């Protein structure tokens, strides 16, 4: 099969299929992942080909899903858990933070939990409450978890395969508003980057926009718009939120002297807070302006008719770019 144009959903589906084929211990489990193929159809067709034993429709209980996945991993399985929506992960939060993250250390390395937790996250699709949240900080703040978020179909495909192959628990945040974006994926090829490497998505010399998941596209558009005003904006797609590839980030900001961090999650104590602090430590003498952040407001995620106000968009990103450049 040669390279084909895939949506992110299809790219993820193909990644699951390849992982299931590669290792008979790999399982897919979650609510409605079987015959329905998941509410976003990411697991479409897998039940037909791999059956009940490997594509497991679970009872509607997220802590139960996570806890039994841990048990299956203890038995030697490699579960890929689907949490149906971001806002539904909290019932599983205890199992993730208290058990999944810590068991390897608690066992002094005798236990490995190679579990991937897929979560469609973020807003922008006009959903009802609890279907648009960005909770990456909760997970990234927890030692023992790895956290990644792809921004495009190619990364989605390869990063999921890498996450499933990893012996560490990985929280895999899928930007659901980008599920239908298209990209050319060659499942027979190989990953261009290690799972936890950042990527310079667009080169520039005047300012670095830092984003991941759904906001990378917005930042690329902002860079394009800024180019019309003569500003060369670099865009770094972090891809991994724990660990963060600070070296790539540092190199970029040392080149540009300015950084603006963009995410959907609230600015307050969001990923941007940590990134800004690290950039300041590492790039202090190269900085021409304070590191600025653009993100969600410190309010519950709003009703969908006003979510565009809450979410960073082209204009808000450009506004921050202008402020940073004006310093």
């Amino acid at each position, binding site marked *: 099969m040669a390279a084909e144009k895939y949506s992110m959903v299809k790219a993820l589906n193909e990644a699951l299929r390849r992982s299931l084929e590669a290792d008979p211990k790999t399982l897919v489990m979650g609510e409605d992942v079987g015959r329905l193929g998941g509410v976003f159809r990411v697991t479409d067709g897998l039940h037909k080909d791999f059956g009940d034993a490997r594509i497991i429709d679970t009872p509607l209980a997220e802590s*139960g899903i996570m806890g039994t996945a841990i048990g299956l991993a203890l038995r030697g399985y490699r579960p890929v858990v689907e949490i149906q929506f971001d806002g539904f992960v909290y019932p599983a939060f205890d199992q993730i933070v208290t*058990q999944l993250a810590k068991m390897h250390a608690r066992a002094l390395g005798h236990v490995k939990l190679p579990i991937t937790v897929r979560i469609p996250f973020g807003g922008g699709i006009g959903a009802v409450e609890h279907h648009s949240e960005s909770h990456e900080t909760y997970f990234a703040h927890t030692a023992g978890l790895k956290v990644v978020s792809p921004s495009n179909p190619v990364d989605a495909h390869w990063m999921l395969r890498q996450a499933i192959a990893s012996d560490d628990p990985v929280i895999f945040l899928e930007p659901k508003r980008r599920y239908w974006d298209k990209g050319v994926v060659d499942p027979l090829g190989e990953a261009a980057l290690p799972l936890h490497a950042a990527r310079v998505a667009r080169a520039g010399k005047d300012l670095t926009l830092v984003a991941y998941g759904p906001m990378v596209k917005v930042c690329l558009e902002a860079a394009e718009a800024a180019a019309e005003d003569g500003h060369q904006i670099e865009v770094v797609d972090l891809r991994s939120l724990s660990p963060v590839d600070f070296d790539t980030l540092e190199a970029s900001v040392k080149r540009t002297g300015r950084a603006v961090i963009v995410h959907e999650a609230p600015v307050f104590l969001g990923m941007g807070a940590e990134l800004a602090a690290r950039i300041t430590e590492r790039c202090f003498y190269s900085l021409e302006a304070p590191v600025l952040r653009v993100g969600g407001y410190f309010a519950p995620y709003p009703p969908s008719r006003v979510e565009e106000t809450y979410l960073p968009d082209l204009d808000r990103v450009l506004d921050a770019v202008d402020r940073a450049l004006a310093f």
Partner: protein
Amino acid sequence: MTVESTAGTATAAVPELVQLLTPEGERVEHPRFSLETTPEELRSIYRDLVLVRRFDGEATSLQRQGELGLWASLLGQEAAQVGSGRAQRPGDWAFPTYREHGVAWCKGVDPLNLLGMFRGVNHGGWDPYEKNFQLYTIVIGSQTLHATGYAMGITKDGTDDAVVAYFGDGASSQGDVNEAFTFASVYNAPVVFFCQNNQWAISEPTERQTRVPLYQRAAGFGFPGVRVDGNDVLACLAVTRWALERARAGEGPTLIEAFTYRMGAHTTSDDPTRYRIANELEEWKLKDPIERVKAYLVREGWADQEFFDAVDAESEQLARRVREGVRNMPDPDPSAIFENVYAEGHALVDEEREEYVAYAASFDGSEEVGEGR
């Protein structure tokens, strides 16, 4: 079938509590649960009970002496643990709370391994795969889901291993335990839910957790529930063995409620005189799990004073070994903080480890950094 969880309505003919050995040490028969035991096996059971109690008592003393930060005593629950522990085959897995010292003993886990976390030198640290005994789990009820998932894996593998999930009356209120019941039921997982109802969740009596006898909860989930005299090691052994055989035969989960009593405090940090009356303790003393086995052995002439003296001597040896082992248990090197956070490493952990090492080295040997106590 009448002692199953449909009980409570049509069970008048059969006692609710399965018992094979009375508190007076009299062997009685039960219409459903029979048990063949040899004198040798009974002596071995007695030895387990005594050694486990002695180990537990030593650990309590070590806490009082400042050698352990905390201890969760199993005093009074020896029969429930030794009975259910001995019912398991080596291939079976046990998923304990933090009080299953007697189960650990039966599985062959070195008692010293259990003490590391209570001394504060690790959070468990033993290899669960060595004796098929999972690490202690402190957050109440979480391990019942791990047990269920593990059992689901056994089904996928097609082997006849089984799993015992330990928890208590307090945990029965946890969502995770109820989710474990649901998952085990719908996937027909080979897991035995072994609830030690020791009557107290720290200071809260069982009435604060449930309006129905706990074993009856199983009915709502669609599998059998049995209440067993948790101070009767033979009944616990017989019923757990039966439940494990059901699991192996593909008949799914069972809930066993071992009706027992926490004779001591919840942990060494607790003071039960603030919330329960002394009378209760006195009543339960009469149901002691060890005395009844001893009485039975004596009555049948299967053990003499020489045997009992030998077991006592062995228990003192064990206590001595535990005492010395704990006192000589080294603190971990502070840099161990950074080990085993991830299986495949993490850049930030590596960076912080280097920072720490450099910081420690900056003292140039004049002072130990991060020296424990």
